[in-house]
């Protein structure tokens, strides 16, 4: 039996914009693939780049971080700082040979339910296409 690959995607959504955007997408009955696991965070600036590496380490196939558009941050500047961090971690991981599709970032505001569904679909499809993560993953099970 060959089951279709269902990726695991950790979606770190900022409480004030993207999470509300996801909410709106849900209320509007927009469809997107069911692979994302949402983790609500106060701000995209709260995302320690180590979370991204830790995600890969635990065998998460894709990591998607989403926050408010620049200028809209609930805490004024959180996403500006985050932007610099993300640029560096994304480049670093790509540099060592992690597929760029696995690390995704987006700005989704509270009113962009449509964009949320669209990005979620894109991220899901891209991660699905690159297959299960193998690099940097620790031993997933003790009993094989």
């Amino acid at each position, binding site marked *: 039996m060959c089951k279709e690959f269902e990726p695991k995607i950790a979606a770190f959504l900022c409480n004030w914009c993207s999470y509300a955007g996801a909410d709106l997408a849900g209320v509007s009955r927009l469809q997107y693939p069911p692979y994302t696991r949402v983790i609500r965070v106060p701000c995209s600036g709260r995302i320690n780049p180590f979370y991204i590496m830790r995600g890969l380490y635990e065998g998460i196939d894709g990591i998607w971080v989403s926050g408010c558009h620049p200028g809209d941050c609930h805490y004024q500047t959180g996403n500006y700082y985050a932007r610099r961090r993300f640029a560096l971690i994304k480049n670093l991981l790509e540099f060592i040979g992690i597929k760029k599709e696995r690390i995704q970032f987006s700005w989704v505001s509270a009113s962009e339910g449509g964009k949320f569904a669209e990005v979620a679909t894109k991220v899901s499809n891209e991660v699905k296409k690159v297959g299960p993560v193998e690099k940097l993953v620790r*031993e997933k099970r*003790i009993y094989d």
Partner: protein
Amino acid sequence: MRQIDKEKFYKELNSLIGEYTVYAPVGDRVKKIKDTKEIKFEGLLTRFPAKEHMLPQNEELFRWNRDKKIEVKIPDTKAIIFGIRPCDARAIASLDPTFNTEKFPDPYYINRRKNTIIISIGCNNPDDTCFCTSFGSGPFDPTGSDLLVVDTGEKFLGIGKEKILDMFGFEEGNDGGEFEALKKKAEGKIERINLAGIKDKLDSLKETDFFKKISYKCINCGACTFLCPTCYCFDIEDMERIDGGKRVRIWDSCMFTIYTQETSGHNPRKQEERRMRQRIMHKFSYYPFLYDIFGCVGCGRCISYCPVNFDIRNVLKTIGGMDE
């Protein structure tokens, strides 16, 4: 002295692969080999000591499944470690009194040790950093090895257990004084440090600022202890997964702050000099006190690979030169 053609020896060793797991130097590590052709001597000593096959860097103590049912697997593979130097062999032997104790024997270590044949190879050409003769040993010391072979060009001379010599088919013969000649030549190259009374001298230094002075330079990494063939300290850690978990022992180093850090925040060895004192005293005072042997074999790895060139020979010389 019993001897064998090198070619014949390697052939014999090759035929034992399968029955035994054979470890031999491949570049800078002692690795499991599938064929003796893989053996590659690079420099005198392998960078990484062979202790990793007695006390692996990560060793599973036991594992448990979802229902928390514990399973233990004690290693029982028969193994041969070939091609390490006599100092590394003696280093493994020096771990025995710690792990093979009467009250709390360590089954993992003991079983490995019992099932492993150690074949060391004499050092015809010792390095500048060697100082094994200081410990009453030397480049052709068979202590700790089940068999010591000496390379004479075409032949291996063998000293060791009768059983092992027979296993490889060493023949009786006359070496024509070659062994003694090689030994003398090799020992002559090695610097000898006077270690007489070092234990008492160290004991009297323990509360002085001697260790503070020498620890200035040390950056407290674990390179010396991880590459040391006699260092054995470890940490125990649980690794949990969705289908169970395992308890693993992992090498640790007395040079790390976290090593003695207690949950309360109290750390008896927070200061660099205390950690330096621990490392030196453990090797040259506590070990002789407890087991009557030094916790150092003079392989010189900690000298060659120290990032800041902390030279333990200088420390020993300084102490040796002091009046009691």
